[in-house]
């Protein structure tokens, strides 16, 4: 590499460092203010305390919202998992002419902006006379994360040796037995990865949820409502914990994605 090129790369790294500072800055600001008092722009380093974390238990509304979010995410991931596995297994066994169409439909909510998916479901629920609640939110999230899990599962399923399944069927196993005892164990890493990514997505989902939520708010909706008056330091504490949790989930998901890709090779 010549000197000018080396300088160019160094300059680009400087730009990248600035961009990373901007990307991580917002989260850092929240985490710091959960531990320290802010005096103008400077942080009072002597004011470190876990006081706001201890105060979390006094905020039942926030904790309820957190509980709702966890419940919705768990239910949505479970439902999407069952749907995705059923769909993927059906598409794998036999020539299914409808496969491209069904896949197109499944991927729609993932590709379209959340506002479109949200309005569609809202209008449909209204026409059916279904009141908005955590159930409607869960259905929305299920539809949204279905594509991720389906994709993870089919990619793995397509790489399985057809002979394994043929052997199982030839030896007298039913389709269900073959699925449960031959195929499912091999899908484990794909399922874990898909579920982790889907859970992370559902946990943070805001734009679709906005249209479907009833009286029981999920955490992002609750945070949005509180944001208008400004966050209290204990909200910063909760948000810091949430950031830690979602980021660990995302890292776990990424690591298992790497593993499941390595396993396929």
């Amino acid at each position: 590499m010549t000197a000018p090129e080396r300088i160019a790369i160094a300059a680009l790294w400087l730009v990248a460092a600035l961009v990373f500072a901007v990307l991580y800055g917002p989260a850092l600001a929240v985490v710091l203010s959960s531990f320290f008092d802010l005096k103008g722009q400077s942080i009072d380093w002597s004011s470190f305390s876990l006081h706001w974390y201890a105060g979390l238990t006094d905020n039942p509304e926030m904790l309820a919202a957190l509980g709702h979010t966890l419940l919705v995410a768990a239910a949505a991931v479970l439902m999407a998992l069952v749907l995705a596995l059923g769909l993927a297994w059906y598409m794998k066994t036999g020539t299914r002419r409808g496969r491209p169409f069904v896949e197109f439909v499944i991927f729609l909510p993932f590709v379209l902006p959340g506002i479109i998916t949200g309005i569609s479901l809202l209008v449909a629920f209204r026409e059916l006379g279904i009141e908005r609640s955590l159930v409607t939110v869960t259905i929305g999230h299920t539809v949204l994360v279905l594509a991720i899990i389906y994709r993870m599962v089919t990619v793995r399923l397509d790489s399985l040796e057809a002979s394994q399944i043929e052997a199982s069927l030839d030896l007298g196993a039913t389709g269900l037995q073959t699925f449960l005892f031959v195929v499912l164990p091999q899908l484990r890493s794909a399922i874990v990865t898909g579920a982790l990514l889907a859970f992370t997505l559902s946990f943070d989902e805001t734009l679709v949820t906005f249209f479907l939520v009833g009286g029981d708010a999920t955490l992002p909706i609750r945070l949005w409502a509180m944001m208008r008056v400004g966050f209290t330091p204990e909200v910063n504490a909760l948000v810091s914990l949430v950031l830690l949790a979602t980021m660990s989930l995302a890292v776990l998901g990424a690591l298992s994605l790497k593993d499941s890709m390595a396993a396929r090779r």
Partner: protein
Amino acid sequence: MADALPAPGRHDPLRATSPAARTLGRWLPRLAVYGLPAVLILAPLVAFLTTSFWSMADGQVEHAFTLGNYVAFLAQPSYIRVFLGTLQLAGIVAAVGLVFGYIIAYLIWRLEGRIRYFMLLFSVIPLAMNYIVKIYAMRGILGYNGFLNWALVTTGILDAPSKLFLFNQTAVMITMAVIYLPYAILPIFLSLERIPPSLAAASADLGARPGQTFLTVVLPLSLPGSIVGGLFVMVLALGDFLTPQMVGGNQGFTFGRAIWSQFGMAFNWPFGAALAVVLLLAVVAIIGAAALISRHARVK
């Protein structure tokens, strides 16, 4: 599907069941496989499209076909201005994502070993940070007493704090750029990954300097995929209604907000649905362009 597997239970004379049960066994899965996506995804979309052709009368939805909502949209220059303004805003956010996303993806692509994977992970982790929290933090950073003004005044770039960074289009643009930039990095990185290493090696063997190789080999080959990444960001920015609401103030009105307000305060769902159909058309056009670009790139 040439490698399709045999249907389970086909060679199965031992487990003979009644014809009725067998018919049910064949149709039930089929019904679920085609029925559930149709009910959960297609039917709501159809309901939404249909609603855009209905109208409001006395606070009730009138179930009668009309083009009135679309006529109302086209007849009001203010809505069209907001629509075009939002397209422009999303375009700028996409361009920012493309440029800075490319720089980061390119630098990571050049790395080797563990640090490469680590940096890639590091660049997508901001995606998992809570969206509302990011908007909230950005509002604090951009405000009159915020970090940006403090930094600009301290470094002497500004004499006094400016109010120009919050509650206007600029604030919406900056915040969206920060939130949606990480979405561009991964697609751009993948388009760089698809370049066969032999091409860069051949370019070097033929005497090109690294800078020349980048400009004549790497950049042209990765540009289509990168533009697709940028268009992906544009779709996200186009549909966002909470960022403009939280940092845009009165001046940062976007089309997403206009749609949202019809489902909230204005409470005119049919008109809101019609506006959302307009947004949907723009999104379909963008996705179509992205599909064309990636197909074109693959043929080469």
